[in-house]
Each structure stands twice: as structure tokens, then as C-alpha cells.
């Protein structure tokens, strides 16, 4: 190992003096605890996943194509609107977009595929309805509309 020049004690001290304020500045700007995750981020992720699996059903099950596309379109709009609100409230640090979920293989058979869509809509409605009483006013309309839309989409599949 070849060190270019011998580092003297004085050099080390000087370097330490330079680093100290920097370390202090870092510890000051670092929040004590990370903020809790935005509950709408989980809703947006669920909506993205629902849109992808409904699109897969629309492709794989001709008997459900129109209804599954309606579900996929609406859940896709939910994902966009919810993510927009999440990013507005807490602008993302990087510009990386949330990765689209892997398209899962739809259940075999129209009945099983329909049931999986209905179950997903019920879970999404319940998740939204649980948040409605506690979210800020300006979010309550959006979250309530998502809940009502999921209930209505079940009617489309009925």
C-alpha cells in the first residue's frame, strides 16, 4: 500500500474540524422519525393492482371482456387520482414512477375470474370506507367516490 504522503496529527485534526459542522447540519435536518405512510398510497397501489388483474381477465375471459374492461378502466382512474393526491401532499423525492404491478395470471374459468374481481372490489370498497370518517375534508370526497365506485362496479359484474 502506497500512501502518497504521511498524514500528520495536525492534518487529522483539521479534517475533523471541517467535518464537525457538516455532521451537525446533517443531524439537524434529519427528522427524528420518518412520517407515517400516506394511507392513500396503499389505496393507489391496490387500485393499480386491481386495474392490472382486471385487464388480464378482460384479455383471457371473452365472456367477461366488457365488464372486466370497465373495472380495469375505473380502477386505473382511481390509481391515477389517488397517486396524484399522494404526490401533491408529499412530493416524491425522485421522479421514479411507481412500478406497474406484474400482470398476474387470471383465474381459470369465467366464474372464478368473476369471483376474484368481485372480491377485490369488495376489499377496495372496505379499505376506502374505513378511511372516509378520518381523512381531511378535501380528501373525503375522493375516497368516498372510490368506495361508491367499487360498489357500483360490482353491479356491473352482477
Amino acid at each position: 500500500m502506497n500512501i502518497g504522503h504521511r498524514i500528520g496529527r495536525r492534518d487529522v485534526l483539521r479534517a475533523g474540524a471541517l467535518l464537525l459542522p457538516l455532521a451537525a447540519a446533517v443531524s439537524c435536518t434529519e427528522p427524528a422519525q420518518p412520517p407515517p405512510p400516506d394511507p392513500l398510497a396503499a389505496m393507489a397501489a391496490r387500485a393499480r393492482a386491481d386495474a392490472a388483474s382486471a385487464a388480464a381477465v378482460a384479455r383471457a375471459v371473452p365472456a367477461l371482456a366488457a365488464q372486466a374492461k370497465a373495472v380495469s378502466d375505473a380502477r386505473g382512474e382511481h390509481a391515477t387520482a389517488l397517486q396524484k393526491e399522494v404526490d401533491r401532499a408529499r412530493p416524491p423525492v425522485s421522479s421514479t414512477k411507481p412500478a406497474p404491478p406484474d400482470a398476474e395470471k387470471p383465474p381459470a374459468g369465467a366464474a372464478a375470474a368473476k369471483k376474484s374481481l368481485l372480491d377485490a372490489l369488495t376489499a377496495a370498497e372496505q379499505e376506502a370506507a374505513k378511511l372516509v370518517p378520518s381523512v381531511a375534508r378535501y380528501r373525503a370526497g375522493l375516497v368516498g367516490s372510490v368506495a361508491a365506485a367499487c360498489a357500483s362496479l360490482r353491479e356491473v359484474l352482477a
Partner: protein
Amino acid sequence: MRQPDSSGGGQLPADSVEAVQSALGSEHAALWVYGLVSAFLPDSYNAAVTEGTTAHRARRDATERLLADAGQTPRPAEPAYVPPQPVADQKSAIAVLVLAEADTTVAWRAVLERTDDKNVRRAALEALTAAAVRATRWRRAAGQSPAAPAFPGEPAK
């Protein structure tokens, strides 16, 4: 900016009261529309008309109680309403039902955005969801697509 959770007999701020009164107005109007259209629909729609009428009547009564509990006088129904388009047959009857349910979703979503009261929020969500589901049924009956809009109750932009 928080207001107490009303567990019966609570107070509601003025903007919440106004939104709930408007929603009550949409329930009165929807009831009137259901009464109007039944004559133009075949018997196969009897169950759906009865269900809608019963649901709007129950919601109207509950909303009147909510306002009275908050010390407000519930606004009465208008003596008559003018449908946005003339009702003359099955097609126009279903169209006006879709409009009445959609108006109801707009009114109740507006309540969600104008109150912090958890009980009023829950009632508004129930009313918004029920009206959105009925609107979807009537759209399907009319062959309208999409039958389920992505954001029921969102005011037209």
C-alpha cells in the same frame, strides 16, 4: 379546526348544515321522481322502483332527524319539481331516474367534503354509495356505457 364528534344531539357548523340541507333536497326530489316514473315503466321494474322509493324515504327521514338533532329545521320538499327532460315513455322515465340518482350522489359527496363529523361522514358515504349503485342499475337498464363512472358524485368539470 376539529369539531366534536356528534353522538346524537351534536352541533353542526353552518357549512355542514347547508350541505346536509342540500342533500335532503336531493332526497325529496328523488322521491318525487320515483313517484312520477312508475306510471311509465312496465311491471318488470316494480321491484327496483319500490326499492329506490323505500331507500330514499328512509334516507330522507334519517336526514331530517339528523338536522333536527343538530337544532336545525329540515327544509320541506318543494310542492312540485320540473324534470330536466319531459317524461313520456320508458326510455325517458329511466333517463330521469339516472339523473335523480346522480344528483343525489353529487349532493352526498359534497357533504363528505363539508363536515368533520364522523357520524355525518358515515351517513353521507352510505347515501352516496347506495345512490351510485342504483344509478348504475338504471344506466344498465337504459343500456348506457359506462354504467359505473369512476368517481360517482364528482361534480361535472
